[in-house]
């Protein structure tokens, strides 16, 4: 089972150092393709777009997702059930449907803006970011909610009994306690943003495309050793993110145990 899961990934890394021009055939060791890759201006540009899209969409969706998680777990408000359902949909909706939705929405919105205000907008960086936030809020909120639900609500009450303002109670009690959940949500958001091909392909403009969409279009034209090298770079990037989230879980579990010990267990 583990061989089935890991062999393809390991072989990909091995073959990315093969000197043969045909990807998947061994022709001696070379790092030529990695050098080529870093000289290719289109790959450099799309890597830049990918990183900027991932960062902007992660920061915004982490803030919005955390706020929704707190609202849903800690408060009652009008429209709560609708909001809750609305936040589940992006998780279960198929990629292709989400892509179609965003494409039609932006086309309609741009037509309307052009008609009413005469503003000519086109798809590009902003539309990619808006779409990524639209699916990431939901994922961040699920991760943070799990953390908030596991947190003792009386701690906040204790803080306000000790004359802490609402903001102080949040800043010094709630936020540190839910921080691992918020970070976990942010890591998931970055991963999903860097992973997405289908939605981005629909909302990207001719000038700005992310690395996965560009690589996808290259593969469809035909595989080259350079694509092997790019894939390995993407693989390493995602593995660093996994290591980050596994490390995070370990650290927060360890801190939890320590807290239990210092408070004598509860």
């Amino acid at each position, binding site marked *: *089972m583990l061989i089935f*899961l*890991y*062999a*393809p*990934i390991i*072989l990909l890394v091995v*073959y990315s150092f093969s000197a043969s021009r045909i990807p*998947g055939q061994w022709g001696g060791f070379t790092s030529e393709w990695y050098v080529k890759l870093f000289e290719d201006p289109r790959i450099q540009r799309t890597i830049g777009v990918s990183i900027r899209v991932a960062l902007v969409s992660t920061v915004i969706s982490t803030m*919005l*997702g955390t*706020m*929704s998680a707190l*609202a*849903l777990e*800690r*408060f*009652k*408000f*009008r*429209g709560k059930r609708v*909001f809750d359902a*609305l936040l589940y*949909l*992006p998780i*279960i*909706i*198929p*990629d*292709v*449907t989400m*892509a*179609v*939705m*965003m*494409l*039609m*929405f932006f086309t*309609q919105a741009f037509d309307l803006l052009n008609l009413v205000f005469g503003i000519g907008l086109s798809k590009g960086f902003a539309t990619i970011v808006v779409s990524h*936030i*639209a699916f990431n*809020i939901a994922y961040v909120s699920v991760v943070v909610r799990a953390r908030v639900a596991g947190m003792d609500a009386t701690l906040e009450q204790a803080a306000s009994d000790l004359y802490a303002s609402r903001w102080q109670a949040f800043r010094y009690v709630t936020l540190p306690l839910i921080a691992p959940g918020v970070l976990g949500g942010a890591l998931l958001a970055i*991963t999903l943003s860097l*992973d997405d*091909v*289908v939605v981005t392909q*629909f909302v990207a403009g001719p000038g700005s495309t992310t690395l*996965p969409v560009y*690589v*996808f279009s290259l*593969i*469809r034209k035909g*595989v080259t050793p350079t694509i092997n090298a790019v*894939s390995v770079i*993407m*693989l390493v990037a*995602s*593995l660093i993110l*996994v290591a980050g989230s*596994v490390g995070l879980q370990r650290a927060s579990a360890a801190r939890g145990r320590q807290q239990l010990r210092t408070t004598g267990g509860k």
Partner: protein
Amino acid sequence: MSVGEAELQRDRAERRRGLFLALPSFVYMILFFALPLVIVLVYSFATRTSSGSTSLSNWNLDAYRKLGEPIVRNVVVRSIVLAVITTAICLVVAYPFAWFCAHQRPNVRNLLLVAVMIPFWTNFLVRNYAWRILLSTGGPLSSLTERIGIGETNLLFTKTAVVIGLVYAFLPFMILPLYASIDRIDGRLIEAGRDLYGSGSQTFRRIVLPLTMPGVIAGSILVFVPSMGAYVTPELLGGGKETLLGSYIVTQFLTARNWPVGASMSFVLMAVMLVSTIIYFRAGGKNL
């Protein structure tokens, strides 16, 4: 002011705070998610004009009637068949592995589960691309089978390649819920079955399988739904030869410019997803 009134006021203030916290995301999700969804729904009832644009003046079900045409019907049937095969293979492969995991010491068990999850977190496109290299003509798998004397294998751009890619991509979705339900079986029930002279297969069929049914259903849905809507895997490993629903929808938008048909098929896909989700929650999937 009475105590009750003060409480009521505090309650109202709390509700305002909650709404205030939720409002930015609420507005965002309505504008950039719910509204797009409604637009797709409206367009699925529209008509494509001869010039390739879309007319909204005449609402009808024509786009959905396309389902009855042989070409579209074949696409839908093919997608369902491939998704069912993928789900069945995942189930058969994952069940023994999940069983094995559940019967290890806690340390080993956690390590195995993390090992299953890591490839799942790595880039989806790269995972599919790896199989493209692995299955290519004269590639690693082909030279391996040649060396052991089975002869060359040319799997790339076949249905088999697509199924391999889908199984590889969604296997963790099957393993995890199965593991969760197997882990919860009370071992004494199996012992009782054996004590009552149940054979191995009888004990499995009459005790273990019914008890792990929620895991089987949850895992099957978690694999079936994304397989049904897959786009990247069939494009890369199937070479776009056998059109599946996902690719068909994309083509309607990016090349054929038939938005009503693309929109209606997106809704067919969503209907599959919604029905499956309802079954999932009915089967107690939320507890997994």
